[in-house]
């Protein structure tokens, strides 16, 4: 009986032809590129994980304010963009602050902490604006970026909360703070390298956003 199933499987495998069920959905490629864009560079990935750790350090009932602020800021950021390379330094700086916050004072000073996802969302939105091209394609890609950033942050925060609730040992909380300290250190180093590696004038996150706001408004 077994040999029959072997032969059956072999025939199916050898007889397989390339799937031609459907042609690519128009704009799908751009959408997926946008979806992974918030994790495509070290600066964005560090910022996303830093913000995720920051959110994970707060009480779950209060996180809605931080998540809501990020959603709104990402949306606004997409309209403020396109960002420039100068935003790389700003994202590393903000990633450092978010990581240091969740490592040193986790779950504290919510009214001030909410500023970090706001600025982070603006930066992620601004760097996610695609190059000039057909409006439809750009909108699809930006929609992907918007979803990628927010679902990504939701997942990072969710995984942290699930791990914390599933494993209630004290060291789990400490482990997240240690990871935050490590990511903060990496972000700070990358920020320093931004200044060391390039002669291009770098500006802070607040300066970068204020410059764009000044140009747009």
């Amino acid at each position, binding site marked *: 009986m077994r040999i029959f199933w072997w032969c059956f499987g072999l025939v199916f495998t050898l007889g397989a032809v390339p799937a031609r069920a459907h042609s690519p959905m128009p704009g799908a490629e751009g959408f997926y590129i946008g979806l992974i864009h918030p994790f495509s560079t*070290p600066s964005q990935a560090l910022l996303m994980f830093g913000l995720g750790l920051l959110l994970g350090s707060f009480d779950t009932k209060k996180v809605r304010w931080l998540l809501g602020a990020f959603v709104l800021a990402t949306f606004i950021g997409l309209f403020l963009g396109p960002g420039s390379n100068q935003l790389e330094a700003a994202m590393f700086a903000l990633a*450092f602050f978010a990581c*240091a916050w969740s*490592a*040193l004072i986790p779950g504290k000073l919510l009214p001030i902490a909410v500023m970090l996802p706001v600025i982070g969302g603006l930066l992620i939105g601004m760097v996610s604006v695609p190059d000039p091209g057909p409006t439809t394609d750009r909108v699809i890609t930006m929609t992907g970026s918007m979803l990628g950033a927010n679902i990504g942050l939701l997942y990072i925060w969710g995984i942290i909360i699930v791990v914390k609730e599933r494993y209630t040992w004290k*060291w789990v909380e*400490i482990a997240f*703070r*240690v990871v*935050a*300290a*490590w990511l*903060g*250190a*990496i972000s*700070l*180093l*990358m*920020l*320093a*390298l931004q*200044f*060391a*590696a390039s002669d291009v004038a770098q500006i802070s996150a607040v300066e970068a956003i204020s410059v764009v706001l000044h140009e747009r408004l």
Partner: protein
Amino acid sequence: MSRHTVFFLFLVAIAITWSSAPSMAHSGDGYGGGFVAGFTHPIVGWDHVAAMVAVGLWGAFLGSPAIWALPIVFPLVMAFGAVIGIAELPLPAVETGIALSAVVLGLMIVFAVRPPLWVAAIIVGAFAIFHGYAHGTELPSTVNAFAYAVGFVIATGLLHLIGIGFGVPAKWPAGKLAVRSAGGLISLAGIGFLTGMI
């Protein structure tokens, strides 16, 4: 598996081992090369190893909250030191500071010094500046800076973890003696680094 089969496989393994040539699949640059360079940097320097392990050991000796506070403070402050190094700002006596970190932290463990947490954090943080500076001065020239930074921060953290692991037996009287002895060894090694004997 019969004895003959095992013997045959053993011979095959030897034949393959002898006939193997150096792998030339990749050049060691990019993310992999950067990570390996960063990861090995704190590990191959004995002065770094001694100090990192001492931080974890002292943290474990002091107990909660120092056991987790010191390994959190160290990488963050170390990164500041690296920034100073990358910016090429002058910092005097870097090697002396690194060697002294092993001496001082080792002595803290030997004499079971239990200062307030903030004092311990300042002591550890001050030495972290020197370690970070040394890493930072070598960082910009590496193949991939991001992978290098990830590698050396993880390696530093794992060395702390090793120190904490060695320090856990400090809960018991015999373990406390062993941990204090280890502190003495680290301190002696520090003197060796300081005098150039090691």
